[in-house]
Structure formats: structure tokens, C-alpha cells
């Protein structure tokens, strides 16, 4: 069923009994052309673009839990493309361009809201870095501007721009095309659109082994039996190392819990996204009215999808430094997602030493914004058995050649 104002009206008149499941729940087949391991946003997007752009029809997405239960539903929904280095910014900008048409493309409202993202500067050096990054962005055709504290005071009245603040705000970078999207809708929208193109989305199906013969991947062992495949794309975020070890590969990533928090719903107080490197927190307000807050990763590695208490305290301190007015807001929920952090804070979207096995991992703390772009380049990498020029630099080999893309700190937020 195509979603439209007409279908809304028709279903409203029939007491909303006509809505059908958004995607099928098929039994796994014996063999697929391509298996995508991981039914998060990136995996579903990969399957969608494989089917849509590359004409691959026999695809399965294997998800150990349920669609939208992993990191896709556990982030702070921020979308931006203001990365410093050309390789990274062009990749994220590709994603941004896909975001801009995504709701129409998927026939699913992902509620992409280009409300702008401010990255605050609190010191002279912050402002120098911001100016450098803004200039780098503009040279790459990405919208970016530097704004002063006076402009911030005008456009974000509750932000503490007092010069007496402990970490006074001097200015910010602003990307107006950046914003937020409804994270669950992104997973559901890609799942529905991929399913429509014939992709089998198989939930509650955990991969327990990667079968190989003669240096080539031949299929996977799962909790629902053996499934053969010509090609296997692994996009499992925090569990990348676990999957890699099944094929005796080693990855340069370490998994950490990254927490996010929402407050009780408030009336509209914040119509944009604020990020601060120096006090290390970021905040926006959801359409439901909750303040959506994020901060840093937990200091130690972990796979428990919950965070540590000191990190919660740190996040709240950061937000109250920026918005003292929120001191009496009660927090409603917190949760943790497991992020696989790369030494250079950039992803790995790459072939591996095993033929027919591809990895897309290492997105660390910033994967959500890249969801469509990541799927788009990974689909190309799998279909053509070589990277697209946008993800050539994100090869696993860069850790041998030394051609790292150092976005730690450079990428507008500390990692």
C-alpha cells in the first residue's frame, strides 16, 4: 500500500482496520545472492540501495533482535555533514543529500527536520578550529557559517551566553541544512521500502558463524539454520569485532556504550540542535517535547546496553552549563547503545581479505547521520566488488598505509 493523504483518509473512514504490516516476516531461504548481517538503519539502507540502484533482487537482511531495537533507535537523531577532512565531509554530505529526499524516496515520513546544528566555541582556539572547519566545509560545497555570541543570544534565548559563565560561549559554527530525523521511522521506512523491492527481512535470526571455503565466504550459520550466500555484508556496529572473529579477522575498533537521555516533555523551548565540544554535550528537543541529550562514551569498553553513572552526571553537568534554565527539568529515560570506535573516528567501509565478505563498521558515535549514505556506498562496494570513490579512503588497509582520516576532535564534536 502506498502511503498518502488519500490512504490516511480511506483508513480513517474504515476505522483504521485496513492497515497492513509494513514488511513481511518470511522464513529464510536456503540461499541468497547477498546477505546483510545486521538489520539496523545502515544494513536496511544497504539492502534497499542494492535492490534499487544495483538491481540485486535476492537479498536477505538478518537481524538478531527486532528492527529498530539496536543503535538506530538508541541515538540522539542528529544529522549533519560538517566534518573537517574532505574524505569524511564528502561521504557525510552524500548522506545529507539522500536525507533531503528520503521521505519521498521511501514513501515514509522520516520527519527529517533541517532545523540547523550549532557547534559552540568556548575558547579562542575553539573559534579558530571552527573557522577552519567552516572554511573547509565551504570549499567542499557544504553550507556552513560562523555565528557570533550576539547572534546566538538572539536566536537561542535560553542559551547561557553570559560572559560570566564558567565556560563562556564566544561563538559557534552553524550548518543550517543539518537537523534531526525520527530515528525509528528511518529503520521502519528503509525496512518497508526494501521489503517492497523483495528483500527478505529476517528478525530474531542471530548469525553465529561465517562459513568459508578456499578464502571465500560461502554463507552464515544462524540460530535459524545455515544460509548460503554469494556475498555477505556485515553492518553490526558495536558487534563488528565479534562478527570479524568468526572469519578470523581482526579489526581496529573497540566497543563502548554511548548513552542518550530524554527528559519529560516540555512546551517548545529549543528549535535547533546545540552541540558543545568543550563541555561535551549535545541537546535538541523532539517533536514530542522531550529534551534529547547526549554526551560522551563510557570510558571503558563494554557490550552491556546501559551506561555508567559518572557519564550520566557528566552529561547533565554539560547541559546545565549551556542551559541553566533546565536545572529543574526531570529526566525521563536513559539508554545505551554499543558503538565501535575507530582509532581515527572514521568508519571502515571495505572489502576484507576474505573474498565476498564486506565490512561496514567503526562509525563510532556518529553513525546515525550517515545511515542513507553508508548504505548507498556499501551497496556499491558489495555489488561492484570495489569501493565507490566516496568510500575508497575508508578501506581497512588505511591502518597499514597510515592514511588515517583523523576526525577525532576535528569533526565538530569530541569523541
Amino acid at each position, binding site marked *: 500500500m502506498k502511503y498518502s493523504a488519500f490512504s490516511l483518509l480511506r483508513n480513517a473512514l474504515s476505522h483504521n482496520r485496513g492497515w497492513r504490516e509494513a514488511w513481511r516476516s518470511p522464513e529464510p531461504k536456503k540461499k541468497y545472492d547477498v546477505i546483510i548481517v545486521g538489520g539496523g538503519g545502515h544494513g536496511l539502507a544497504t539492502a534497499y540501495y542494492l535492490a534499487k540502484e544495483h538491481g540485486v533482487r535476492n537479498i536477505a537482511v538478518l537481524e538478531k533482535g527486532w528492527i529498530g531495537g539496536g543503535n538506530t533507535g538508541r541515538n540522539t537523531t542528529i544529522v549533519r555533514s560538517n566534518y573537517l577532512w574532505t574524505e569524511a565531509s564528502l561521504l557525510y554530505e552524500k548522506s545529507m543529500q539522500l536525507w533531503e529526499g528520503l521521505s519521498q524516496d521511501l514513501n515514509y515520513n522520516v520527519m527529517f527536520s533541517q532545523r540547523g546544528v550549532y557547534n559552540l566555541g568556548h575558547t579562542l582556539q575553539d573559534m579558530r578550529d571552527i573557522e577552519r572547519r567552516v572554511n573547509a566545509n565551504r570549499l567542499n560545497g557544504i553550507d556552513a557559517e560562523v555565528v557570533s555570541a550576539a547572534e546566538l543570544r538572539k536566536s537561542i534565548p535560553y542559551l547561557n551566553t553570559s560572559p560570566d559563565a564558567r565556560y563562556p560561549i564566544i561563538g559557534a559554527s552553524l550548518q543550517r541544512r543539518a537537523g534531526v530525523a525520527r530515528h525509528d521511522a528511518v529503520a521502519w521506512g528503509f525496512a518497508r521500502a526494501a521489503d517492497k523491492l523483495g528483500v527478505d527481512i529476517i528478525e530474531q535470526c542471530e548469525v553465529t558463524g561465517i562459513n568459508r571455503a578456499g578464502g571465500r565466504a560461502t554463507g552464515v550459520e544462524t540460530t535459524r539454520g545455515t544460509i548460503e550466500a554469494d556475498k555477505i555484508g556485515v553492518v553490526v556496529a558495536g558487534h563488528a*569485532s565479534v562478527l570479524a572473529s568468526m572469519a578470523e579477522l*581482526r*579489526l581496529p575498533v573497540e566497543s563502548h556504550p554511548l548513552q542518550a537521555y530524554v527528559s519529560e516533555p516540555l512546551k517548545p523551548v529549543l528549535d535547533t540542535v546545540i552541540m558543545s565540544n568543550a563541555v561535551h554535550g549535545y541537546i535538541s528537543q523532539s517533536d514530542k517535547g522531550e529534551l534529547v541529550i547526549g554526551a560522551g562514551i563510557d570510558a571503558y569498553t563494554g557490550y*552491556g546496553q546501559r551506561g*555508567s553513572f*559518572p557519564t550520566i552526571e557528566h552529561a547533565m553537568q554539560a547541559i546545565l552549563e549551556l542551559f541553566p534554565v533546565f536545572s529543574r527539568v526531570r529526566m525521563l529515560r536513559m539508554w545505551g547503545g554499543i558503538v565501535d570506535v575507530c582509532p581515527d573516528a572514521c568508519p571502515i567501509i571495505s572489502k576484507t581479505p576474505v573474498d565476498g565478505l564486506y565490512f561496514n563498521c567503526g562509525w563510532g558515535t556518529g553513525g546515525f547521520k550517515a545511515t542513507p549514505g553508508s548504505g548507498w556506498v556499501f551497496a556499491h562496494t558489495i555489488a561492484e566488488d570495489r569501493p565507490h570513490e566516496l568510500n575508497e579512503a575508508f578501506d581497512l588497509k588505511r*591502518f*597499514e*598505509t597510515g592514511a588515517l582520516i583523523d576526525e577525532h576532535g576535528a569533526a565538530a564534536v569530541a569523541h
Partner: protein
Amino acid sequence: MLLIKCPWCGERAETEFSCGGEAGITRPANPDSLTDAEWADYLFMRKNPRGAHAELWNHSLGCRRWFGVERDTVTYRIAKTYKLSPGKTD
């Protein structure tokens, strides 16, 4: 909040410590003789296991000494902490 037993100072809150990552990574004696792949393996590749993990921690806001920790990366339960032998990293 993790309660971590420093082998010298006893049990303290996790905020006094910093995690130094995977234990047992020894700097190659002769880096010049390594291939790029071997050097990358030493420098960047990590086990990152789901489950039992041997790691190094530093009591950075206490005695500032390094020690070994066996911790489960899912339950975060610490099986044991121990002093390192001289010249050993695990």
C-alpha cells in the same frame, strides 16, 4: 558505578581510575623488521571481546600505578585485579 580494587589502595570508585585498554600488547622488540601489516596489527588491531577481557587500568587519581583487571564486558563484573610483574603487560 564500578567498584575497582586497586592492588595497592583497595576498593575505590571507578571515577578514580582510567582504563588503559587491552592487556598483553607488547611493543615489538625490533619494529624495523616488521611488515606494515604486522605494525598495524600491533598499533591498531584489538580483540575487543564480548565477555571475559584482560585489561590494564591506572589508578590515575590515586597511587597512579598500573595494574591488571579481568573484567566481563557484558556484565561489567570484575573477576580479579592484580599487580603486574616487572616488564609484563598482562
